């Protein structure tokens, strides 16, 4: 389907997810959607109204929802479960045992990832979800950064056969990618996109909410004469190996930027890739530093927890 998200303008990626669900509902008659009383936030409404037979309200029974999805998959359906990212661990043992181990075709969507969830506070700010999911074999992890990519990632996720975790976020973010952009998403191999290439001083690897901040930082640094490249990491598992290793090779160092604990997420994953491929480089981390945040506006939190544009710039400068 042709998309129509105005580039540069802010848009909620959950709406793009909801749009994609609706579209995919028409294309896959085996697609079913399960909710745990957060359908409003997850934008499952359009699908639910259009395909009421394939929509299931499980209420707040996250563990049950994940296993019922497994049941659907056993019968050849493509179930998608929906809740906040912070409540994914509510059923993560079930995800591990009943979905990942038998490698079932279940898609798990967690919205409100990261501290940018904001005012609701720590209980709603997922900063461990990626770390937990990465520990589980067979699990693909996708973390889009704008509406266009979210739409295409949702398509790719549904097309793929096997367990996938899709992480979304609460706030609006600018539309980064052109609507016609061809992502060539391959969830078996991993996907990253070079969005800036001012030069080879430092590479910024960003994901999700942080990507548009990384772009801002990169532009700002460029004005100061510091030449960075920005690679948007769509799949945290598997990582897009080649583009990362090349960046490590060609630049003086890598800054990873994620709205997640620096333990377990993109930062950790990149480190392990670099060392296991014998390609070490200077490293800096943007992310929440193994601590719990608090309530507040996303921008205020990002500043207080050193995850804002200025912090990205500072970490880049650390390397140089």
């Amino acid at each position, binding site marked *: 389907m042709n998309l129509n998200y105005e580039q540069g303008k802010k848009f909620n990626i959950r709406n793009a997810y909801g749009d994609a669900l609706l579209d995919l509902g028409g294309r896959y008659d085996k697609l079913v959607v399960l909710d745990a009383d957060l359908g*409003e936030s997850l934008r499952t409404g359009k699908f639910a109204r259009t395909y009421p037979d394939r929509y299931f309200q499980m209420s707040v029974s996250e563990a049950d929802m994940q296993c019922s999805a497994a049941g659907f998959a056993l019968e050849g359906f493509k179930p998608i479960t929906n809740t906040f990212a*912070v409540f994914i661990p509510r059923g993560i043992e079930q995800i591990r045992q009943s979905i990942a181990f038998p490698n079932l075709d279940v898609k798990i969507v967690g919205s409100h990832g990261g501290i940018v969830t904001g005012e609701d*506070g720590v*209980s709603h700010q997922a900063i461990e979800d990626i770390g937990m999911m990465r520990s589980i074999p067979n699990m693909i992890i996708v973390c889009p950064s704008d509406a266009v990519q979210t739409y295409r990632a949702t398509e790719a996720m549904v097309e793929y056969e096997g367990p996938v975790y899709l992480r979304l976020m609460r706030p609006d973010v600018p539309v980064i990618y052109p609507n016609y952009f061809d992502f060539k998403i391959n969830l078996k191999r991993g996907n990253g996109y070079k969005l800036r290439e001012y030069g080879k001083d430092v590479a910024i690897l960003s994901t999700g909410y942080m990507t548009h901040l990384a772009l801002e930082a990169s532009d700002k640094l460029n004005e100061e004469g510091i030449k960075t490249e920005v690679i948007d990491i769509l799949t945290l598992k598997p990582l897009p190996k080649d583009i990362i290793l090349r960046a490590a090779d060609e630049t003086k160092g890598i800054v990873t930027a994620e709205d997640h604990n620096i333990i377990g997420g993109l930062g950790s994953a990149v480190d392990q890739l670099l060392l296991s491929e014998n390609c070490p480089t200077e490293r800096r981390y943007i992310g929440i530093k193994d601590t719990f945040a608090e*309530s507040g506006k996303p921008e205020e939190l990002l500043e207080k927890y050193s995850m804002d544009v200025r912090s990205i710039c500072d970490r880049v400068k650390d390397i140089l």
Partner: protein
Amino acid sequence: MHSYSVNDLELELFATEVRMDVIDMLYKAGSGHTGGSLSCTDILVSLYHPKHGIMKHDPKNPKWEERDRFILSAGHKAPALYAILAKCGYFPREKLYTLRKINSILQGHVFTNTPGVEAQAGSLGQGLSIANGVTMALRLKKVDSMVYCLLGDGEINEGQIWEAAKNASYHKLGNVCAIIDHNGERIDGITWEIYPIRKKWEAFGWYVIGEEVKWTEDRKEMELDGHDYNFLTNAFKEAKERRNDNQPTAVIVNTIKSKGIPMMENVVGSHGRAPNKIEYEDGMRYLKEKAEKLKVKLYEFELRAG
């Protein structure tokens, strides 16, 4: 309206003022859960009211060992608890306007950094298990206090609630009183899926007070026990009196979501947001008028008594 006692009037005035604070702080915060905060206000007032509340507690000494404990399990109802704690004197009232702001002692969902808050909550379904742990600990310490725990009706969809229900009765936790705020709504709809409520708690070995009045379109026109201080006070008292009977008590309380903002009452979709300007003004006007009337009535009572 049924006939009022001075106690009722004092409780109702207190609750009306609490509701104004709740609406005010939510409106100023710009986000938060209006529906559930207002449905449970009268419950909390019946527990905490300085004169008529059922709970032993001391705002000057929040960690007083002999206090009754209150565990808010449905942590999104935080504004109601905050407003009441402030009114009781746990912390200065101005703090209410820092709700959900950075560096605040008032987190979006309850956290133990707030004076008077016993436990964190926000992820549904955990508070009753915590209440059980607290109660088992009190028993070991030989402190004979009550542990009240407030649950949402949507919240009891969580299986953990039934693990806790089973373990409370198995471990004979007579000091536990679970209160189910049955406003008949959760976020995406009506709580049809959890009916019958009373039979479930009974089957899990609890002594049950109250019975659910199933959600209807005209719920807001009904006089419900969850906004009746007589019912609430007697229920919480009865639970307390039964505390050495080795059986936990569940109180099912029928309420109206967003009670106090006529435009938002009983409206599915009013769950997880702050009132908008019109709703805010509507609610404040309604509550102010109500408070004025209550004050007049109280004055009349005093004159008569005087």
